């Protein structure tokens, strides 16, 4: 078991290295002089030279990468010129809203998707199956930001139940916090839930075709006992994998949803940084989200061991 954990962590290192390299390379794709692009056309040569010196842009690329990586490993993600603060603090300030949005959205998605997928698979071929799967199909076909806009139009503008945009941190009371987060979380959760529901159904159907399910039936077990005790536990491994993989889709969706609902999260931070060409922030934020994705998938890999004895007892 320990060997399995050690192996999963070893896989992690090269992936994180690739993440760092890709993150670094993207920013340095800029054609022309990044300093001029950042300071705009009216900046004097002296300012350009000072900025280039400050950012070390005139050093060879691998030296820049080395210094940047060294900084990252020490938690120093560089300095943001436009926000006049270290990138790490900027990210830290914007982390709260994104974390609560994504967690709430994921909880809603899983709470809806798993029962939906299981019910559809258990009643394969009936109208219930077709209904749920058409809903799931719609779910992955409607972009989350359009759902958000419609929610605003309906609930905020027409009915006035929820505020159209804005964000209240948790410290201002749970109800208040949720009042602002309900619409964005639901609009983000719908696509995520649809993806997970479809996957739950297909992996459960695959398990229901296995021989040990027929053995369980031959033992005289009730249909629902077979579904929940024998089938679901085996189907959970691919479901967990999908939840891990679609986490990237979730974060991507969060970026757009934050823009729709004016939530000051990481997404908003990156979007404004892009419009202002604040490369240090873009680099730092993207590195942070990608690392979070990789760590979450590591946790999910370790969860396999709880469910699957073959993994837990692998020598």
């Amino acid at each position: 078991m320990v060997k399995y954990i050690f192996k999963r962590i070893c896989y992690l290192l090269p992936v994180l290295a690739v993440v760092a390299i890709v993150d670094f390379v993207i920013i340095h794709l800029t054609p022309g002089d990044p300093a001029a692009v950042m300071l705009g056309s009216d900046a004097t040569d002296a300012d350009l030279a000072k900025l280039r010196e400050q950012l070390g842009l005139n050093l060879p690329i691998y030296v820049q990468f080395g210094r940047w990586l060294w900084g990252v490993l020490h938690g120093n993600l560089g300095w943001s010129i436009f926000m006049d603060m270290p990138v790490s603090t900027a990210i830290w300030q914007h982390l709260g809203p994104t974390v609560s949005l994504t967690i709430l959205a994921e909880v809603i998605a899983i709470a809806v998707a798993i029962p939906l997928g299981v019910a559809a698979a258990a009643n394969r071929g009936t109208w219930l199956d077709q209904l749920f799967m058409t809903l799931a199909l719609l779910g992955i076909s409607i972009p989350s930001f359009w759902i958000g806009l419609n929610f605003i139009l309906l609930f905020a503008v027409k009915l006035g139940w929820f505020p159209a945009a804005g964000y209240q941190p948790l410290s201002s009371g749970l109800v208040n916090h949720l009042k602002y987060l309900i619409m964005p979380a639901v609009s983000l959760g719908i696509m995520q839930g649809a993806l997970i529901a479809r996957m739950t159904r297909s992996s459960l159907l695959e398990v229901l075709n296995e021989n040990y399910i027929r053995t369980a039936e031959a033992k005289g077990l009730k249909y629902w006992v077979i579904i929940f005790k024998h089938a679901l536990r085996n189907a959970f491994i691919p479901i967990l994998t999908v939840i891990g993989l679609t986490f990237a889709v979730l974060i991507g969706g969060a970026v757009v949803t934050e823009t729709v609902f004016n939530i000051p999260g990481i997404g908003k931070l990156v979007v404004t940084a892009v419009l202002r060409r604040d490369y240090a922030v873009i680099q730092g934020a993207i590195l942070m989200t990608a690392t979070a994705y990789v760590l979450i998938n590591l946790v999910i890999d370790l969860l396999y061991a709880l469910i699957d004895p073959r993994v837990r007892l692998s020598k």
Partner: protein
Amino acid sequence: MKKQPLLEVRDLKTRFSTETGLVTAVDGVCFQIYSGETVGLVGESGCGKSVTSLSILRLFGKHSGTRLEGKILFEERDLLTVPLDEIQTIRGNKISMIFQDPMTSLNPVYTVGDQIAESIVLHQKLDRKQALAKAVTMLELVGIPSPESRIHDYPHQLSGGMRQRVMIAMGLACQPKLLIADEPTTALDVTIQAQILELMQKLQCELNMGIILITHDLGVVAEVCDRVLVMYLGQIVEECPVEVLFDNPLHPYTCGLIRSIPSMATNRREELHVIAGMVPSLYHVPAGCHFAPRCPYADAQCGNPPELVTIDAEHKVRCWHPGARASGERRLA
């Protein structure tokens, strides 16, 4: 020995709905099983032997479009018409079934002990601790060494032979009256197969239960079975005691089958006998006698379907010219 049969199947028909319409996998099968007796259900793949066994316990899944007709009488009840929860009390309790591939027939995420105890708890209303204790005795009964520790093993930690023993232990946990074994030893090596066959014979005497053994290996039939049913394309074409099958097979298909298998008895120099043609698919079953297109003795009469006729006390055959022999064809030694 006209005692009450344990199980009687009358005119069983099983049909599947597929994209291109209804397909009849089992077409009017009739037979009886007596307790303490092993009956072999023999035939090539696609002849309907497995479908027959699955029909007895209605194990076709909740949403498959299968239609069952006819009667299956067990303890004065027709298994085809009893409600689902009643047949669930019979499955694994009075009639249990073991399957071919030991590698995939056990749930990989539960221990062996749990899976055996599960049916004991379900059918004999014991609590989990008592059920596990009974499971240990079952593992001992099927000859698994150090059963107390094996109880906590997972299926992937056991070899093929061991898993098949676990399957048997699971099947016999509630002392069933009838055991249906669907090709139990096909996936096993010949030395392990010998162990499993010997175990099944020992348990049959101890528990005086009936066994339906489904196989395509005539050697296994000769070793273990008392009576044999030969199936071809959904129908029983011959039924007789096992000695009679090898001494005096009457149906041309049975003769062809026996003589086309290389065995200890056949002469190595001669070419193997070959049954002409191929098994037709279930979508276009020949009218009349199903074997007619491949039968060397077929004539006009074989155009209309033969009945399963009783030749003598225990020998039935579905053929217009039973025992037909081409001149000079010698019978098996």
